[in-house]
């Protein structure tokens, strides 16, 4: 779907409230079946030995396949990334303030990516993933470097139950002096979700405090699960 039309379907206030409460916010029906299939098909394109080796090296055994967009994002995702960044930057700056952090993010993605390059962060992180039966993705976070945008986007490109079983998107939240909390982000085919990249502010009795987050994909029990991760900051 056109990036601006997609964003206009959602109320920024509602999304911000969901992010504050849970650390994620669902964006239902972002990709129609045609768009989802077109993206997923990229996983089947022939890749040379070098790309295959890099893809394998980046993944732990049992973690499935990852396809980086080495030649840049396809136009649909490129437009999305710019529009979502513009939409999320004010929310990101609000979180920075609540977390007591001084860094603020510019209004436009281009300016943010300039800051990434100056910080030595030049490796794009957005990717497609395909997990088959037995594959899973360990709990992790993408927070290398000094430029870390507090949100990223994940999406599911095929259908739970129909195309695969298991493969839940799980987040864990580690709070000071408390037990961790696990969350399962409900995703149907074509749904996206905004998630906290690595940390978020939580309202406490004495102001806000910071909690650390990780995310994972649980074991795929059958079939194959095709997902998308869209990140705003680049890696060192």
């Amino acid at each position: 779907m056109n990036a601006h039309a997609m964003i206009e379907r959602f109320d920024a206030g509602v999304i911000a409230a969901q992010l504050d409460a849970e650390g994620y916010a669902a964006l239902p029906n972002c990709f129609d079946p045609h768009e989802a299939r077109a993206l997923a098909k990229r996983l089947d394109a022939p890749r040379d030995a070098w790309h295959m080796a890099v893809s394998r090296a980046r993944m732990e055994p049992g973690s499935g396949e990852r396809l980086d967009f080495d030649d840049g994002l396809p136009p649909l995702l490129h437009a999305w990334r710019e529009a979502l960044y513009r939409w999320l930057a004010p929310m990101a700056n609000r979180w920075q303030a609540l977390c007591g952090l001084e860094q603020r993010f510019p209004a436009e993605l281009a300016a943010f990516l300039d800051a990434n390059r100056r910080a030595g962060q030049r490796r794009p992180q957005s990717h497609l993933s395909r997990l088959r039966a037995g594959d899973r993705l360990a709990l992790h976070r993408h927070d290398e470097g000094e430029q870390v945008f507090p949100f990223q986007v994940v999406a599911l490109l095929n259908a739970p139950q129909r195309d695969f079983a298991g493969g839940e998107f799980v987040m864990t939240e580690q709070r000071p002096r408390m037990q961790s909390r696990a969350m399962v982000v409900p995703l149907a085919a074509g749904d996206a979700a905004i998630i906290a990249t690595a940390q978020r502010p939580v309202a406490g009795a004495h102001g806000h405090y910071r909690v650390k987050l990780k995310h994972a994909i649980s074991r795929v029990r059958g079939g194959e699960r095709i997902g998308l991760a869209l990140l705003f900051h680049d890696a060192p």
Partner: protein
Amino acid sequence: MERDTNWDAIWADAAESLDRHGNAVLPAVLRAGQCERLAARYARDDGFRSRIVMARHNFGRGEYKYFAYPLPPLLERLRHALYRRLAPIANRWNRQMGLDAQYPAELDAFLARCHAAGQTRPTPLMLRYRAGDYNCLHQDRYGDHVFPLQVAILLSAPGEDFTGGEFVMTETGRRNQHADVVALGQGDAVVFAVDQRPDIAEAERGRARTPRVAMRHGVSVVRSGTRHTLGLIFHDARGPAASAPVSAWETA
């Protein structure tokens, strides 16, 4: 569990899944009617020894009640039958992890050991989650005598009685940390590691001693409806005479 089911095959699969993932599903251990009758007991005061409101202890949101002895006959039978199947797995795990504790073949002998050590309070419990409730990732220990496997049975029907409320486990091994989600239907049981399991896959890579994986379990937010579960823990809890309250043993 009286129906014509091939329990030997189910337990063989379960042992394999426990070794690989620290959890295993036993399908349809209770019938829908049994589940509903048990869940209906939750509202009553009799038959329970205490009620815990999770938010008060930072355990999450929602509540649970510990059954008092004597347990309802169905639970008593289930706890004994499950223990009998699990004790050989527990003994093998402890040997693989280099732990000394071995468990007797029958639950009564193991409980006698717990009771002699002052762990006298029954641990079977029922949990109730309503919309917005969740359970943090934790381990149920309750004292020095710990049986390394426990069981939870989903009493409500997912999609009908509630949405959300997934049973989630994390495992922390040498290399990294994973999250597992166990899909359960009404009446299904999940058997899982209380606090650790041997890392069989890692051992198969040729390590001399089998490393351990730390396990925790929890429940993600229930989005709507009410979710009841039955928890069967095989060790009993330290009594009030001992200094620590039960809750202090449930560490993150």
